[in-house]
């Protein structure tokens, strides 16, 4: 009796379990995504919400407490006061990104196709300076580009100092700031480019040449399109943080070179004016988001994933 019952119920139980999984199979990807989504929600969306809330607050100047007042004027004030710094940020970031691309592409190309067994060593050499902190690296540039330093002396000697720099100096000019940004974000450009180029099957290039395409044509029609995911990833990884950077402008520039990051930093840290700092941060984010959306649209999203 008991056995019969067991024999009867067991398959039913299995069927039930199978049904559960079957019924919820469509949920599996979401369950797998859940930890990541929870992380994003907790550490990105929630703080972002706080930031948005803060951006509409008004501050008491004595005890620095904020009260929520729907202060939309924080946005218009920020935009009308700091439009110059905002535009300058994107200008510097764009120039630095373009230079980084021009420098990194040949570098990554050479390592990927000619690096041979030294590839890893060359890659390490790109990353090596980054074992030193950002601040120290930028301070080193302050010394390298110093008015009394060798670089400036050489440029003075060849009469190029006022072409490349300004007022007989390099430090405290836009050139120094853009150079600093380019240097500091170069690996973010070079590494994705390398990965994209390294994945290209050399036989495709050989095939191009077999079909009597010149080296330039092969590059333009085979190598370059295949490396586009790297270009896209590299430019985004460089441009986005560069637009929000403030260290380079602070150490290598003057108030005339200050970027929006300097404003946000000083509002947050020096002025403790959190509401307008929050408003500026959100404006910066929104502008970057729009620019990136347009950029990706133009280059094609499928390039992002290869």
């Amino acid at each position: 009796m008991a056995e019969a019952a067991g024999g009867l119920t067991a398959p039913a139980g299995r069927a039930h379990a199978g049904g559960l999984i079957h019924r919820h199979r469509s949920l599996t990807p979401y369950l797998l995504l859940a930890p990541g989504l929870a992380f994003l929600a907790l550490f990105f969306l929630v703080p972002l919400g706080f930031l948005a809330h803060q951006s509409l607050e008004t501050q008491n100047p004595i005890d620095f407490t904020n009260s929520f007042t729907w202060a939309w004027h924080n946005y218009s004030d920020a935009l009308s006061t700091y439009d110059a710094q905002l535009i300058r940020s994107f200008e510097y970031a764009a120039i630095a990104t373009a230079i980084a691309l021009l420098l990194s592409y040949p570098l990554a190309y050479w390592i990927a196709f000619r690096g041979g067994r030294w590839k890893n060593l060359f890659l390490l050499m790109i990353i090596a300076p980054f074992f030193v902190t950002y601040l120290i690296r930028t301070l080193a540039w302050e010394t390298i580009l110093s008015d009394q330093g060798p670089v400036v002396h050489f440029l003075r000697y060849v009469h190029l100092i006022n072409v490349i720099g300004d007022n007989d100096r390099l430090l405290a000019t836009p050139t120094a700031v853009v150079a600093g940004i380019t240097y500091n974000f170069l690996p973010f450009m070079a590494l994705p480019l390398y990965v994209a180029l390294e994945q290209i099957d050399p036989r495709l290039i050989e095939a191009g040449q077999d079909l009597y395409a010149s080296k330039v044509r092969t590059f333009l029609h085979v190598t370059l399109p295949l490396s586009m995911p790297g270009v896209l990833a590299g430019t985004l990884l460089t441009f986005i943080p560069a637009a929000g950077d403030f260290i380079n402008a602070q150490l290598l520039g003057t108030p005339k070179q200050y970027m929006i990051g300097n404003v946000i930093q000083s509002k947050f840290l020096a002025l403790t004016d959190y509401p307008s700092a929050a408003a500026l941060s959100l404006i910066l984010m929104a502008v970057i988001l729009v620019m990136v959306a347009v950029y990706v649209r133009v280059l094609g999203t499928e390039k992002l994933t290869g």
Partner: protein
Amino acid sequence: MTDSLTRSDLLRRAAVGGAALAFPGTLAALARAAGPDPNKLRGKTFVFSNWPLYIDVKAHRHPSLDQFSKKYGVKVRYIEDINDNDSFFGKIQAQLRRGQSIGRDLIVMTDNSPYPALLVKNKWVEKLDKSVLPNSKNLVPGLRHPAWDPNRDYSLPWVSGLDGIGYNAKLTKPVTTVDQLFTDKRLKGKVTLLNEMADTMTLVMLSNGDDPAKVDDASFDRALKKIQKAVKSGQVRQFTGNDYSGLMAKGDVWAAFVWSGDMVQLHADNKYLRFVIPKSGGGIWTDNMMIPKHGDAYLASVYMNFVYDPKIAAEIDGYVNYICDVQGAAKVLQKTDPAAAKNPLIFPTPAMLKQLHQFDPVALFNPDYKQKWQKLLGA
């Protein structure tokens, strides 16, 4: 922290307590005679945030801190992380506002910024423990009753100092006026100003013939316009906190608004640096030691008492070349370092004091001025 009370300690304390109860008058006498209680200090670490170039240095050590450490058996962590008042206050205010510790027992803030007053007003600082601070009687009379801390319950001066012009005598002829600093073509792009509103504004307003102790909108705007012009023309390279020191030592900056003692201390790096009070007058301010909330008031007060010993004050101020606010230090220096005792940067002469001006404390709290000033700084 790890030390526990021993039985005999307890008994001794009970005895002292009993005696104090029996004869209330003797408590104060006892405390004074005994000095700081070593049990309250042993094994502790004293964390002190100060400005760069602000303490005695010898062979990469700070002798006065070493002596303190040895005398009281405490460890000292000395951090030179105050570059300017604004950014340091910005760093610590969020924690203070939430009632959290900032991990410091003592900080130093300037009275020509709004912050010492704000710290007291918001009760973000601990009261000094005057039972272990008998040496506070050595404070010069003129600084005993500032409006923002009338009885010096929350603060004691570290040193005072001057705002003036610093220049590199090897790279430029003497720069003695603000107008020369702002317009001399040979200094174009080699000039920095201080990012503290009071320091820079005091000097510029004096050069305009205005009184920095009584700021009004017209005089403020006049000074602001003058600075704006110098920035626009490219004459002014940067606004700095204490970080001008590196730029001047390296020779990237030839002339600047600076704080008095730094120019002398930087001689180790560059012996051509000079300090002058501009012809139109200089600024004067006082830096104040304060104990941030949750700092160890007892330990910090013992330290303040230590540096208010004229011997120690002479040691520190003789080195840093800032104005000594401790009476009796001059006498000590006359024996140990006669040159320092005569140095007007440490002990200003009456004639010099006449040239020095304080910035209007009311103007420090004017939000409109603050906004305009920050806009000028580019942020």
